[in-house]
């Protein structure tokens, strides 16, 4: 069942136009044909009545002098004069047949009853019956009846129907072509709107208004859409602003809490109390890092994240990051497998450190205790590749791109992993800004996170590319 709403507007418009054309033309042709045929019939009837009139006049004397032969002679003339007349008869004033004529090969005339009832002409499907009184001295002395074969009419009808159908088909084709051209005007604007909407969903750029200056419904729709987009953009901005403010506001009391708890830590000797304080401190640090991540995300979203670019020693940074991460894990072993060189990288040292710390922290978080985390590096002529391998739960293939999205947490609910799910999103942004790449390869037995950083000499070309 085809629903009207499922047909594209383009097709609906075309259908509508074609349908309208066909209906209108059909009606017009119909009317024309009907009036044509009507007037043809009228003219035919009139001319036959005239003929009957003439016959009648010429038969007056035959009737007056009771000479049916002469009347019959007149009727016989019809054979040549009006071959479409198949029967003719002259009756007297009492209705009895005085003279009659039938075209060769046909039975004699039977005057239909309805003719006798004072009608001068009657059309049946194939014949025309005509009756005309014979008047002499203002008195009706008889009647002339004619039966006319309407073959000509049949032919005319067929011809006209054929022409009408041909013209109708022509009209159909033309209206289809015209509709095809015209509909694009409407559907083009609509499709442009749809395309923009799809794009916005993909890129998240809400600020691109659709340009449409029409005052019709599509124009109104476009304006409403643009306004809506503005509102969304505004609310996005407010949200980001809020995140920024919120994280800033959160940091102030955090500062106090952290400071005082650290003091407590220094001052407390009692082992139990020290343990408690230690737990509090650990969580304060977690909290602090979550708040920082939130702020980073807000900056990335609003395009405010800026890098402090400098040259630094990558190998040293890796060692530092490993050392810092090792402190946070009891049982994991973080091992460096490559041969450390002294690779100098141009980038934001603090941010790259952030990436390393994040990846290492993930490796520790998502793999069981006492397992190994392996750090490896490689270098080719274009880039420096860092690899962090763990033996954890791995990342399913369908999630390997999604994990870098905001707020993405693993779908595996059997494990509870803390955090907002922002870390990889921030890492990706940082690495992208360095013109590097970040990705994961994974089986069920563990994951390998890779990221690349361009070597110094390739940077200038990279920058123009992106």
């Amino acid at each position, binding site marked *: 069942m085809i629903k009207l709403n499922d047909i594209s507007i383009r097709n609906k418009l075309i259908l509508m136009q074609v349908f309208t054309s066909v209906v209108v033309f059909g009606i017009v042709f119909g009317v024309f044909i009907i009036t044509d045929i009507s007037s043809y019939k009228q003219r035919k009837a009139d001319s036959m009545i005239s003929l009957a009139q003439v016959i009648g006049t*010429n038969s*007056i*004397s*035959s*009737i*007056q*002098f*009771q*000479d*049916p032969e*002469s009347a019959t002679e007149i009727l016989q003339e019809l054979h040549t004069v009006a071959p479409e007349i198949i029967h003719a008869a002259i009756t*007297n*004033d*009492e209705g*009895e047949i*005085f003279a009659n004529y039938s075209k060769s090969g046909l039975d004699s005339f039977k005057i239909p009853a309805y003719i006798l009832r004072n009608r001068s002409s009657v059309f049946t499907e194939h014949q025309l019956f005509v009756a005309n009184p014979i008047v*002499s001295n203002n*008195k009706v*002395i*008889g009647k002339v009846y004619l039966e006319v074969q309407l073959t000509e009419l049949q032919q005319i009808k067929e011809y006209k129907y054929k022409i009408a159908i041909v013209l109708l088909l022509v009209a159909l084709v033309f209206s289809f072509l015209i509709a095809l051209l015209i509909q694009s005007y409407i559907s083009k604007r609509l499709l442009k709107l749809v395309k923009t909407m799809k794009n916005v969903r993909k890129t998240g750029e809400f600020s691109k208004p659709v340009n449409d200056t029409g005052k019709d419904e599509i124009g109104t729709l476009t304006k409403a859409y643009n306004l809506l987009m503005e509102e969304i953009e505004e609310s996005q901005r407010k949200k980001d602003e809020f995140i920024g403010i919120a994280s800033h506001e959160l940091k102030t009391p955090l500062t106090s809490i952290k400071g005082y708890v650290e003091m407590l830590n220094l001052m407390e000797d009692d082992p139990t109390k020290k343990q408690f304080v230690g737990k509090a401190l650990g969580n304060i640090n977690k909290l602090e890092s979550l708040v920082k991540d939130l702020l980073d995300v807000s900056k990335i979203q609003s395009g405010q994240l800026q890098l402090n670019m400098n040259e630094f020693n990558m190998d040293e940074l890796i060692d530092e990051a490993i050392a810092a991460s090792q402190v946070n894990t009891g049982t994991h072993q973080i091992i460096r497998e490559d041969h450390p060189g002294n690779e100098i990288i141009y980038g934001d040292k603090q941010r790259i450190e952030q990436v390393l710390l994040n990846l290492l922290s993930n490796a520790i978080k998502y793999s069981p205790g006492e397992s190994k985390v392996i750090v490896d590096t490689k270098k080719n002529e274009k880039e420096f590749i860092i690899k962090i391998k763990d033996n954890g739960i791995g990342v399913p293939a369908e999630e390997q791109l999604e994990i870098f999205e905001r707020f993405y947490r693993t779908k595996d609910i059997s494990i509870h992993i803390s955090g907002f799910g922002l870390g990889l999103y921030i890492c990706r942004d940082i690495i992208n800004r360095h013109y590097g790449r970040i990705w994961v390869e994974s089986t069920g037995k563990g994951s390998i996170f890779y990221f690349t950083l361009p070597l110094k000499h390739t940077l200038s070309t990279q920058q123009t590319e992106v």
Partner: protein
Amino acid sequence: MNTLFKKYFLLIFLCPFCGSLSAQQNAEQEANLKAAFIYNFTKYIDWGSYEHGNDFIIAVAGESPITQSLQEIARTSRVDDKIMIIKKVARPSDIDDCNILFITKECRYPLDFLLKKAGPGVLTISEEDGFAERGTAFNFVILNDRLKFEANLKAISSAGLKAGAQLLKLAIIVD
């Protein structure tokens, strides 16, 4: 000549064509029919300059039942809006001003005499075989049990009259 037939009422205009004659009834019918014919003749004859007077006079020569039929017609009908007068003519010398001279078969007078007396402007009608050849304009004959009439074109034209084609086409032309 005697065959059965239906009875028709014959007034002026319409007669069915089936007819044959039998005895008294038939005689009456024949008279009526002939009178009707005579009356109808007037519709097709042009008297031209011979039209005169306010009345239309049909002179009937001889004692004939047709006279009565003519008189009946004359009661209700007119010729050219003129009152019809049926005049009995006993002797030829009585024939003077008339439009039609009807010579009945009862008339004993010689035809030539009557014709001479009739003169121009008079339509002569007879009902005796051979009279048309002898000079009457129209002559009734019975053919196949049907009433027909002969027409003598020369007689018509020498009387200075014109006969319409519609009439002549029905007549048996005799010369």
